[in-house]
């Protein structure tokens, strides 16, 4: 019995081990930042690699914790994203004093996400969610000297607290009407009971806050702008992905009896999210704000995918998130390097970027093309498969809307490409020397962007696992 728990929880335990190691590093003797960073990156790689071997299926703690091959895959994707973010923040962290704390906060948050994804019970889910959110607020405040960073942290913690409140209220309604918190039992008690529907709506609002779906998105742009780039990357990729994974599994597992209700909710949310995200992204000049709004629009597309049937829906979600990890982190990687080494974060600063930094320009361009959904990058497949999954409901009005909105999103992604390649700048960003490890992370992202799409086995693999859900 005890050994099975070790196997089931091995990803969580390994991460906890990393957190303890960091604590020892912190109180141990003084080391150079480079050596700590290298050590952490190696450990993160080991952490990722260990997740790839051996699938385990089962539950622990009376069904509060469940895992299967699909969930392990989701956690692996988050581990991969964590590793890439860590590799890309090398230039920024090299001279940072509170290096260990930064990783402590992110790892703790990641651990919370793991528990959230694996939760088989609303209580466990809530615990995981809080554990993942609170460290993030502290991490958002990591540019200690900047006032905007503190503002971001404040906004994040307040809006998270608010959304958690709403979420808890929804949970208590569900508990009050069904008398249980366990997903398996709860689903048998779900009906069109108004009280339960209200609880469901509150629960969805709580989720919508975390994934910044419109109209619950107002915190996103400010927080993304104020937080350090690496934390923004974590917020926009890892945190969002984890909540989306959980959201999807709860929708498909628990709320199947009211599928028509949540289909309507998802359609409204996705239409608003895509439209508002796109319209606001059009006019941003700060790169992080731009990526914030574009990521809002991406969430809208994801919601369309989820609205389809469960198997293709969850498969296309996980597939898209994997692609999103590569593409968004490649874009954030470039922004992060430029911000750390040149101190510039505006799109207008990127004018003439190609003349001085061809490599970074290509990385950025390929990443943006993938985000926009241009073939042969993987983003094309990711987005199309989401829309194909959504089209299964034969709601062609929604699909037409989404397809035309892809054109709007092309406009703002191409605008950046235009600035990078076509426009002149009197004071272009100087030639930057990218750290080797960051360069490696970018190569991984580019290879990922190209391979994940064209090589169909990635999708087929995810799809085959999603049957087991």
């Amino acid at each position, binding site marked *: 019995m005890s050994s099975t728990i070790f196997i089931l929880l091995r990803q969580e335990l390994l991460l906890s081990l990393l957190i303890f190691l960091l604590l020892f590093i912190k109180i141990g003797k003084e080391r150079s930042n480079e050596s700590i960073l290298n050590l952490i990156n190696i450990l993160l790689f080991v952490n990722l690699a260990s997740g790839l071997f051996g699938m385990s299926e089962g539950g622990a703690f009376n069904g509060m914790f469940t895992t299967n091959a699909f969930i392990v895959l989701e956690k692996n994707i988050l581990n991969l994203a964590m590793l890439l973010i860590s590799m890309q923040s090398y230039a920024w962290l090299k001279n940072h004093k509170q290096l260990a704390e930064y990783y402590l906060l992110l790892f703790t948050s990641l651990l919370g996400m793991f528990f959230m994804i694996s939760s088989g019970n609303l209580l466990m889910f809530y615990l995981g969610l809080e554990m993942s959110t609170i460290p993030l607020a502290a991490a958002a405040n990591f540019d200690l000297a900047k006032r905007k960073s503190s503002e971001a942290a404040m906004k994040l913690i307040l809006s998270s607290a608010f959304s958690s409140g709403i979420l808890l209220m929804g949970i208590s309604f569900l508990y009050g009407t069904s008398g249980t918190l366990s997903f398996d039992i709860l689903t048998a008690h779900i009906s069109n009971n108004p009280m339960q529907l209200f609880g469901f709506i509150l629960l969805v609002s709580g989720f919508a806050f975390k994934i910044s779906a419109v109209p619950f998105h107002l915190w996103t742009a400010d927080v993304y702008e104020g937080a350090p780039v690496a934390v923004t990357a974590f917020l926009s990729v890892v945190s969002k992905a984890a909540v989306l994974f959980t959201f999807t599994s709860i929708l498909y597992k628990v709320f199947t009896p009211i599928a028509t209700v949540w289909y309507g909710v998802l359609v409204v949310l996705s239409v608003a999210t895509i439209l508002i995200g796109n319209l606001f992204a059009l006019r941003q000049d700060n790169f992080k704000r731009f990526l914030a709004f574009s990521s809002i629009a991406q969430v809208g597309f994801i919601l369309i995918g989820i609205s389809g049937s469960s198997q*293709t829906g969850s*498969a296309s979600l996980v597939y898209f998130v994997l692609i999103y990890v590569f593409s968004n982190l490649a874009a954030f990687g470039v922004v992060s390097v430029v911000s750390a080494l040149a101190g510039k974060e505006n799109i207008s600063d990127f004018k003439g970027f190609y003349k001085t930094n061809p490599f970074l320009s290509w990385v950025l361009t390929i990443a943006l*093309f993938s985000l926009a959904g*241009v*073939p*042969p990058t993987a983003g*094309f497949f990711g987005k*199309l*498969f989401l*829309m*194909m999954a959504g*089209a*299964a409901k*034969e709601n*062609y009005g929604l*699909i*037409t809307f989404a*397809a*035309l909105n*892809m*054109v709007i999103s*092309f*406009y703002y992604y*191409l*605008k950046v*490409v*235009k600035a990078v*390649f*076509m*426009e002149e700048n009197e004071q272009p960003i100087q030639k930057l020397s990218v750290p080797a490890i960051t360069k490696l992370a970018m190569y991984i992202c580019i290879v990922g962007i190209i391979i994940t799409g064209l090589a*169909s086995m990635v*999708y*087929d693999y995810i*799809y*085959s696992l999603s049957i087991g859900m």
Partner: protein
Amino acid sequence: MNLSLLILLPLLTALLILVSKQLAQIRVIGLVGSLAQLGAAGWLLKLYMDQRAAGNAATHLFESNTVWFKALNINYHIGIDGISLAMILLTSLIVVAGILVSWTMEKLSKEYFFLLVLLSMGAYGFFISLDLFTLFFFLEVAVIPKFLLIGIWGSGKKENSAMKLALMLMAGSALVFVGLMGIYYNTHTFDMVEIGRMGIALGVQKFFFPFLFLGFGIFAALFPFHTWVPDGHASAPTAASMFLAGISMKLGGYGCLRMAALMPDAAHSYSWIIILLATIAIIYGAFATMMQTDLKYINAYSSISHCGFVILGIGMLNKTSINGAVIQMVSHGLMTALFFAAIGMIYSRTHTRMVAQLGGLLKAMPFISTVFVIAGLCSLGLPGFSGFVAEMTVFMGSWQNPDGVYRIATVISAASIVVTAVYILRATGKTIMGPISDEHALLPDATWNEKLAAGLLIVGILIIGLAPFLINQLIMPTTDFLMINIDKALTLK
């Protein structure tokens, strides 16, 4: 022959260009790569004709079907028939010519050649696809290189033109995508051959045909979605203009044709709208051209008019007219590519494209002027050149349609030839004849690469113009087959 070769050759060329260092190396790789494509296309033609002569009556030859995304029933299904082979030959000719005329490109030459080759890869992939998803994939592969080519190497208000073109084409593919979804969820497959065999329910056809036809129509400069054409062509560098008019617009025409064959009922019931739009495009394009003073704009607007004939031929839905539409696609591709090449040669020497500032070029550059005149004469449909054959066939086909409205549309479209003659003769007359200004008098004539490029295209034009039976032999059996399906669908109703 494995058709994937047509995708692998450009891919290999592009990768080699990416790793090469010197300008000379890049050029040579680009040229050798494009010649290899031309060779492959020619070899394919020979094999195809041999197979047909040996009595192989299959609709598609060299078919191969590999599972791509198993879970979604997406297959990499490729194969060619006469029409796609004609398009492949056209593409390979224009690619060689395009690479040759960009020989002197020195600004970011590596990226330039890379994007040109990437664009051609998209076109080949598009023409050999028998699976709608693959078709769509390659259609979009060909869009982004255009954006970068125009935006980086273009002239004038290049950024705006590039953005306009990319967004309009993307909107076109968005419409195509919605149509594909509709077909997919009603037939549960993307395979065109299979869909053709099963047929699509009438209601589904009528609902989704407009999405698909308009979507591809935007690529083919269908009125009123033609507005990207003039700006895009005028701002693009020479080779990109050639690719754009010669290859890219054909993607749209070819797509429209395939969609009409796939959904004959819908094509039939919407044919009056298609023909109305085509007639407007033909007349509007011709008159708009008369008002232009910039050579590139003249050719771009006349392209709208000429591509109208393609749509007209498809809309008439009979054997002769569809044949004409295909020949018109090939002929227009060669002819505009030649025209843009000639304009590019003139511009690179005189640094102006304004008709008013040019004159008497025949004295300084006889070769380029001759090329220019040939392109012009082909454009106005002089017998002996491909334009005549193509337009004549379209008109003959259109006239076969006895309904009054169609007759009127045919007469009006045919009348546009007069307008074409006016603007072509005026433009050529003013640029080639008359007194030459002192600064232009000493300009050099075409270099070897330009002569070769123009020569290739002219040979293509003359082959179609003087021996139209050759291209008919290639495409007729295929149109016959298409018509069997279309007639069957229409008589059953």
